[in-house]
């Protein structure tokens, strides 16, 4: 099975107040050293005959890098791995993506781009601390399309301050008229330790009930515009799913490069420390082993239920035994009556209502019957 490659670019022009991914302020000199470190890290895999079919630049803001730096990393990957017909994605900030830059990305082989649009309401964008307004974002999408991208994704966010169902619908309608094929719609979550982590913000954003309503509304409205839900927060037109992200959810392997990047390789889960200077200094030394023998049953259920395609009871029984499969099936029947779960012969999947409660449902499914009497 071909593997995926993830490159973490931990630089931003400005850190968004809700984000808790690892990133630091962009500095040209550091970025140069960092790209060098990533390339030499990749070089270790040369001649190991590893097949790769997806590459993903995530961040941070990968689009702060010079186009040639992205090109160099892609080139290094192609030199070291057997890369065939790859999906190559880059996350981009609408304000740092000029038409010219977008053309250079295309030339470097990047064929999928994901814009952090978030909202069509400029005051909501201001609340999120974004540097762009909606017109800039729309322009960036058109530029990308003009530059030859035919696989464009936009992020939108639910639960913002002053956001109503109406203004959310407006955002959805505006974004779905752009030439895009994919949407990621996230419910805002206030993470501990971020600038948003205070009562003022907590009290101004949507409560649980409104957020749930927004989510269900979004799923429905996107469907009516031709965007099919395939994961909790992801929607695609014409099955233009994110192949790379699917690898995470389908339990396939991937190699991560760069500070804070995670890998699942040869059955082992590990990551690099959240310290790009350490990564530059001593790449190997910043590696952290997470799990040498992950529980395959647990991972299968936990990750597959994020997907609309759900879990196969046959596979559950092969991985975790018939008793577990039977237990899940009987619980699923109960949840089906409550509209949380869909059962289609061997396949169990969550409905949008079920997705909203997926943590609890997954925990229920994984609670082995023999643990209680």
């Amino acid at each position, binding site marked *: 099975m071909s593997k995926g490659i*993830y490159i*973490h670019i931990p630089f931003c022009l400005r850190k968004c107040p809700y984000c808790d*991914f690892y990133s630091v302020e962009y500095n040209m000199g550091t970025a140069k050293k960092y790209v060098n470190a990533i390339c030499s890290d990749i070089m270790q895999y040369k001649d190991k005959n590893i097949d790769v079919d997806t590459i993903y630049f*995530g961040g941070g803001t990968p689009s702060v890098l010079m186009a040639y730096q992205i090109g160099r990393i892609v080139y290094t990957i192609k030199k070291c791995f057997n890369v065939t017909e790859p999906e190559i994605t880059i996350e981009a900030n609408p304000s740092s993506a000029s038409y010219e830059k977008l053309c250079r990305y295309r030339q470097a082989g990047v064929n999928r781009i994901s814009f952090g649009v978030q909202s069509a309401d400029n005051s909501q964008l201001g609340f999120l601390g974004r540097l762009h307004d909606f017109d800039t974002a729309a322009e960036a999408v058109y530029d990308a399309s003009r530059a030859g991208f035919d696989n464009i994704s936009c992020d939108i966010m639910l639960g913002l301050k002053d956001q109503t169902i109406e203004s959310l619908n407006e955002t959805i309608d505006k974004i779905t008229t752009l030439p895009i094929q994919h949407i990621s719609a*996230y*419910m805002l*979550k206030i993470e501990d330790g971020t600038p948003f982590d205070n009562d003022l913000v907590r009290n101004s954003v949507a409560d*649980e*009930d409104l*957020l*749930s309503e927004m*989510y269900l509304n979004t799923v429905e409205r996107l469907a009516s515009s031709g965007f099919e839900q395939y994961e*909790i*927060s992801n929607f695609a037109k014409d099955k233009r799913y994110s192949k790379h*992200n699917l690898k*995470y*959810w389908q339990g396939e392997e*991937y190699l*991560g490069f760069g500070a*804070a*990047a*995670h*890998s*699942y390789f040869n059955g082992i*889960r590990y*990551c690099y420390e959240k310290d790009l200077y350490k990564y530059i200094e001593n790449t190997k030394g910043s590696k952290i082993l*997470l799990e040498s023998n992950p529980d395959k049953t*647990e*991972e299968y259920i*936990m*990750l597959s239920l*994020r997907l609309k395609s759900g879990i196969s009871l046959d596979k559950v029984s092969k991985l975790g035994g018939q008793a577990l499969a039977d237990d899940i099936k009987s619980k699923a029947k*109960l*949840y089906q009556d*409550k509209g*949380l779960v869909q059962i289609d012969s061997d396949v169990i999947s969550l409905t949008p209502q079920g*997705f*909203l*409660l*997926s*943590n*609890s*449902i*997954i*925990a*229920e499914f*994984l*609670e082995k019957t023999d643990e*209680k*009497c």
Partner: protein
Amino acid sequence: MNENNIRNFCIVAHIDHGKSTLADRILEQTSTVELREMEDQLLDNMDIERERGITIKARAVRLNYHADNGEDYVFNLIDTPGHVDFNYEVSRSLAACEGAILVVDASQGIEAQTLANTYLAIEHDLEILPVVNKIDLPSADAERACNEIENVIGIPAMDAPRVSAKMGTNVHEVLERVITDIPAPKGDDNAPLKALIFDSYYDQYKGVIIYVRVKEGHLKAGDTIKLMATGAEFQTVEVGYMGAKDLVPVGELHAGEVGYIAASIKDIGDTRVGDTVTTTDNPCAEALPGYKKVNPMVFSGIYPVDGAKYPDLRDALEKLMLNDASLSFEPETSIALGFGFRCGFLGLLHMEIIQERLEREYNLDLITTAPSVIYKVNLTDGSTVYIDNPTNYPDPALVASAEEPMVTAHILTPSDYVGNIMELCQDRRGVFKDMKYLDETRVDLHYELPLNEIVYDFFDALKSRTKGYASFDYEMLGYAPSKLVKLDILLNGEVVDALSFIVHTDKAYARGRRIAEKLKENIPRQLFEVPIQAAIGGKIIARETVKAMRKDVLAKCYGGDITRKKKLLEKQKEGKKRMRQLGSVEVPQEAFMSVLKLD
């Protein structure tokens, strides 16, 4: 040691009057404990005792005292609990003594438990040595305290030692007075052995250790002893006395002495507290009277949160019973909670302590059901049944009449709070009997109250209405006719047997509603809506709803970092361990606890 130079005594007092502190000072001044080893509440060696500042278990220790008259004495000091629930512990220790030091706080005067414990001591024919403590406090009024002792209890107290156990003031005088005021034991050392078992515990190396007071005769290692009630015989391996920190072996135990016997006894059931120990070679003619068996008054079901821990719970209860004869238990099954035990306690504090000891000392997570008293139910067929478990309450159609246990209660309080207390007692269906002024500012209120009204939270309510100044004691009075109903709690339409309880008709509605509210607060939102109902017979009298959970999702799972999702899952699994699955509803342990405390 000549019997004339032995003194066996205990200390009785109301809680917080300084009993354990006085014991600490006595240990110090008799050099039983080196100063560097001294710690507060030395005899209270259970964590719970130290944290709560109370004595639960009686403890014995031997002291050597060189008196002012030039002679050497052996004192056996037995520390006793103060709370009413532990009266049985007090009685046990009293039977091993000839005298009792009565400690009264100079700033508080006589309190309810002072009275109860002193009367207990007088009942056992003990000589009482009153001591007025805490004279260092600015609010101390030793004169008034002595007056109260004379007027309320009726024993002479004008020459009572005035001490400050905290500062060590006049503790020497107490020691001297022990010699002059408390009689020496009288027992024939050459008679056949007759020793009273007043405590026992299990030691993993030596087997059961029994604490005895030798009334007559003597005993040495190697002698074969016989426990008269059970008839069991054992070869004595070691005898000795109780040092402050360790057991100290000696050659022989003689008449009048307090000590221990180790005889490789494996089964604690053989050593009943109150039994008489004699020797097989030269047995005594008849056993000592022993103790009145204490009857549990409060019952409650105890269940492991994790059903698989049932055998562990049984082991733990058996071990606790070894040194707490008042604890009783038998297996019971609940539809909701599975296998557990119906346990009998002397009171609510006793119940709390046992539960806490099980959780701490035996590392168990428990669910306790609402405490119940024993109701007497007269059936239409003329028979009478006693019900200590609400689950067994007969069908109302079969009940001719019902009776509930009553107590006679004394509440000692500053007169300012009389109004508040009367209101509380009224609310708890109390019947006012009389009121006596102890002095100008303090009052003894006498009420008759249903026991089931005080087993919940009466003591807490009393304390909060009197800023902690009132003290309270009660004794059983007997049964009185009552109008009782069984109140059921339904979760998701199903009766949860473990939440049922018996209540007076007039209180049923209010309590049912309060419990439903409490459960709503304590049951977390679930995947679907959970109705909570309170019902009498088939009639719903209260309803609350736990709304369905709306959102529990990790929206972002990206960059291959699935550790966060896994951590979340682990946390959820942990949380589930503290929950009980009742039908399709998950109920946390706290929900069961919360219905015990409704105020």
